Every structure is written in structure tokens, then in C-alpha cells.
């Protein structure tokens, strides 16, 4: 059984003369919840479509559930649950007919879970799919991906279109599925969307994997923008005390206002701030683009490149 559920080696994909993937390498271990993060157009959907054999790689190999030659192993997809990035549901068929048809295509697997899952997500099964709102279509897609309890889930931007309440329900479903031993591979362009469930994440940008890391380490390295406002301007010795906190960088103190980038534990910052009267407080996760900027700065510094 030595294989990983997903093993991608040197995956290259061209659309005509445009190279969308420049040699992607990835391994997702059994039982892992893996996040696949990248900005729009990075190549997430292209990678995923290669895993499902909708696209044929220009070079490299994608091995899914031990099947190296996906073209000749379509039956492997019975063990996969796939949620497309752009769900298209046409025709007058109802959500129930759509999901029942999907179950039939899978030899009947999961048919009995349509009803309970629809109830859980509050989906009206007897409405035609083409008239459903984006969120409701997404629910149909989620049920379709999970209903046959597959051992591998490949989810392309699963939470897009779901409101916060449903996102929570979805994440609960993902957690249950992960606890049951399934492997999850989910893409997003926002780190915070996957960090609640993912153990590791890969970051893809312009068709290249730029980083594969533990989600907590990444988050810690990413840091937060912290803003504090005090009831009075800070004295000079207080400013020196804040500047001595190792987790803070890019510190600016402007009268009663403090802004800084926090990486790591907020403990020392909070204890120092508590010596004064705090009137406002905010901490905001940095977005992915800022992370990329860090990454490039770091790699060019490592390579002895020009300073910026």
C-alpha cells in the first residue's frame, strides 16, 4: 500500500502555447487535510483537472489512489469525491434528480445519504437546479462530493458562495470526514478559508509551487497587522519597551496610536499594552499577496540579490 493518495511529479500543462503549470510536485499523505492556496489564475484548477483526468498532462505524472495511468483507470473516480470550482447545473432536473443521477453513475453509492445531507444543509431537493442561487448550487455540489463517503475528496474552492453559517456546517462536515480517515485536498485563494481544517498547505503562484508548509507555521510566519490606540500619547520609555518585544516588527508609534506586524505569540505585546489604558484594538491576518512579497524578499536576500 506504500503509495500516497495524491502524488504529483513534475506536472507541466500547456494550453496551446501558454504554460499554466511549470513542473508541479506535490505529495498528500493518507488521512491528511491538505490546503492548496494560490491567487486567481495560479493553476489550482488546472492541477485538479489533471488529477481527475479531464486534462492530460503535457509532461510529468499525477498518481491518484495508486493509479498512475489515470486515462485507463476511470473507475478510480468511484473512490473520489470532486467538487468543481465552477458548478454548472443546467436543465429542468431537480436537485434530487441531479444527485440521484450522480449516485446512479457511481453504481448507486451514496443514494441513501442524499436526504439527510440535504436536510443538514437546508437544501430544498425538489426545486429545479438551474434556478438555484449560487449558494444553493454549491450545497448540491458539496452533497454530491461527500455523499458516497469517498476515501479522497478533491474540492476546488469549496466554500465560495456559502454564507458564514453554511461555511461552518461545511467545515464541520470536512472535520467529520477527516476524522473518519478520508484524505482531503482543497483549493482556495484565501489562506483563512482552509486553515481551520488543513494540516499542511502548498502555495502555488503562476504555475509553480512556491512553498509547502505546516499551516500553523505559515500563519505564524505570516503574522498579523496589529493596531492599538491608547487613551494618551505613549511616553518614550513605553515606546522603547514595545520596540524591545521580539515578536514585533515594522513598529510605528504615533502619539497614542501604535501599529506593528506581529509574528508569533501576542503574549508579550498584550502584557506590555496592559500597563496602559487601551481604547481600541484590532489584529488582522495578512493576506496572501503580502506573504508572497515576504517570500520573494526572502529568497532574493538568500540568493544575495539586490536589497530593496
Amino acid at each position, binding site marked *: 500500500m506504500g503509495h500516497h493518495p495524491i502524488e504529483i511529479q513534475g506536472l507541466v500543462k500547456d*494550453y496551446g502555447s501558454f504554460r499554466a503549470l511549470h513542473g508541479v510536485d506535490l505529495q498528500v499523505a493518507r488521512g491528511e487535510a491538505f490546503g492548496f492556496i494560490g491567487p486567481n489564475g495560479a493553476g489550482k484548477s488546472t492541477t485538479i*483537472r489533471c488529477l*481527475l483526468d*479531464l*486534462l*492530460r498532462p503535457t509532461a510529468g505524472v499525477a498518481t491518484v489512489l495508486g493509479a498512475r495511468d489515470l*486515462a485507463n483507470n*476511470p*473507475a*478510480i*473516480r*468511484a473512490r*473520489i469525491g*470532486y467538487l*468543481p470550482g*465552477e458548478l*454548472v*447545473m*443546467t*436543465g*429542468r*432536473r431537480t436537485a434530487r434528480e*441531479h444527485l440521484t*443521477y*450522480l449516485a*446512479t*453513475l*457511481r*453504481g448507486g453509492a451514496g443514494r441513501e445519504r442524499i436526504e439527510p445531507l440535504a436536510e443538514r444543509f437546508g437544501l430544498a431537493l425538489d426545486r429545479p437546479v438551474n434556478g438555484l442561487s449560487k449558494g444553493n448550487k454549491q450545497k448540491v455540489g458539496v452533497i*454530491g462530493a461527500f455523499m458516497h463517503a469517498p476515501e479522497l475528496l478533491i474540492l476546488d474552492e469549496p466554500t465560495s458562495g456559502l454564507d458564514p453559517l453554511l461555511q461552518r456546517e461545511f467545515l464541520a462536515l470536512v472535520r467529520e470526514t477527516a476524522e473518519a480517515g478520508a484524505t482531503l485536498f482543497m483549493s482556495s485563494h484565501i489562506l483563512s478559508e482552509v486553515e481551520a481544517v488543513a494540516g499542511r498547505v502548498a502555495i502555488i503562484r503562476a504555475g509553480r509551487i512556491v512553498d509547502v508548509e505546516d499551516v500553523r507555521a505559515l500563519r505564524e510566519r505570516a503574522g498579523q497587522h496589529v493596531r492599538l490606540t491608547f487613551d494618551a500619547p505613549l511616553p518614550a520609555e513605553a515606546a522603547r519597551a514595545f520596540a524591545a518585544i521580539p515578536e514585533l516588527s515594522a513598529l510605528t508609534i504615533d502619539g497614542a496610536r501604535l501599529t506593528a506586524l506581529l509574528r508569533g505569540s501576542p503574549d508579550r505585546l498584550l502584557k506590555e499594552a496592559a500597563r496602559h489604558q487601551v481604547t481600541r484594538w484590532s489584529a488582522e491576518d495578512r493576506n496572501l499577496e503580502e506573504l508572497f512579497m515576504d517570500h520573494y524578499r526572502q529568497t532574493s536576500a538568500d540568493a544575495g540579490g539586490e536589497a530593496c
Partner: protein
Amino acid sequence: MAAPPVLVQVLRERRRSLAGWAVAFAAICGMYTSIYPYMAEMNLQAMLEALPREMIEALGYDDMSSAAGYVGSATYGLVAFALLMVFAIGNGAALLAGDEESGALELELTSPLPRAAIYVQRLGALWAQITALVAVVFAVTLTLDLAQGLGIPTLDLAAATLQLWLLIGLFGSLAFAAGAATGRRGIGLGVAATLAVVSWMLNAIGPTIGLEWMSSISPVGWYMDSNPITRGFHPVDALLLALAAALVIAAGLRRFVRRDLMT
């Protein structure tokens, strides 16, 4: 063995539309066949003889003196022929390429079914619909023939029907296969409609300008020659139609299982 799921689903979803087409075919073919006795009284043949010979031949209206000649040119040679072409080419292009373009095909393509099974079952759904409509044409014509005592030789009518079925199946398959090979519905429509018009013209014009070889390379010529009913059964032509269809189907499948899908 379980029923082929894609075939069943496509037919189920198309049943209303197919019923509508069937009613339309029955009405139109019924109308054409039932007016023959009145046309015969009006001495249509004499009227037609006043027209230029080439024009009559090009339209296939060269034998109006018998019911078989009339039904052969009016129903089997023109109305049912043209409407079936429209239906088969439109459906053929929509059934695979149309659904791929809209994205609806993704559900099946990411299911455990092999690509070839999806292709074959959807093609089967096309042929099943064509079979149903051709059967309607045959049944209505035969019923009115018997009811009105028109005396059309039943075997000749059956032979014409079989050859019509093959011809329509060929062009429907061409639209289907060209669409499947490219993923573009417009290409399926364009290729099949262009070739249908070209082969109709080759068959219609060739003989009038003394170039008989034109109709012998035309699939419409293999079906129609001058009149699909009075000419009876031509095994070689039927075989040619079947072989052409098989070739087109195989070529489309070969490309479909190899290319990138849903791009």
C-alpha cells in the same frame, strides 16, 4: 446487467421534446400523404411537365404519376428528409459538444464511467431518437397508404425507410463526432450541415449537368438516387451509408478519448 445510465438519463430528459417532434412529424407526413389522391385528380404530372426538366429533376419531382413516386419525392425525398436532417444534426451537435460547452457534461466526465462509455451511450441516445422519428414517418405513411389504398409496395417503402434511417444516422453521427472531437457545438453543426448541403447539391445537380459521378460520391445520392421509394433496396448503397457512419463514429471516439476535456 444494469441499464446504461447515461443513455437512460438523456432519453428521460429529452422525452418531452422528442414527443413534440414526433407529433410534428406525424402531422406533416400525414398531411403530405393524405393529399395525394387530390393531387392525382389535378393531374399534377401534366402541370409539372410544363416546368423545365432540369428543375424537376433537381427537386426530385420527376415521377408524380404513382403514389410511390409522389411519396418518394415529397415525403421521403424532401419534407421528412429535410426535417430529420435538421433534428439529427442539431441534436447530434448538442448531445455531447453542447453539454461539454455548457459544463453540464462534467458530472459524467468525473464519474467512474470511462470516456468511451459516455460517448457511446450519448450516441446511442441520438440513434434511439432518430429511430423513433423515422419509425413515425414509416408508420404514418404506411397507415395512410393502406387506408387510402394508394398501392405503395410495402417492401419498397420499408427499404426506403431503412436507407433514410442510415442516412440520417450518418449525418447526426457526423455532427456528434465532429463536436466530440473538438468540444465545440458550432463545429459539429457547421461540419455536418455543410456536408449535408454539399451532398444534396451533388446528387441534385450532377445528373442534370451530365456528371453522374457526382451523385455516386454523395451520401444523399446513396440514399435517394432519383427517388428513394421507387428505386427499392440497394444493399451496396446501404452498406456505404453504414460504413461511412461507422468511420465517422470511430474517428470521433478516437479523438474524444485522447483530448483535454472542458477547456
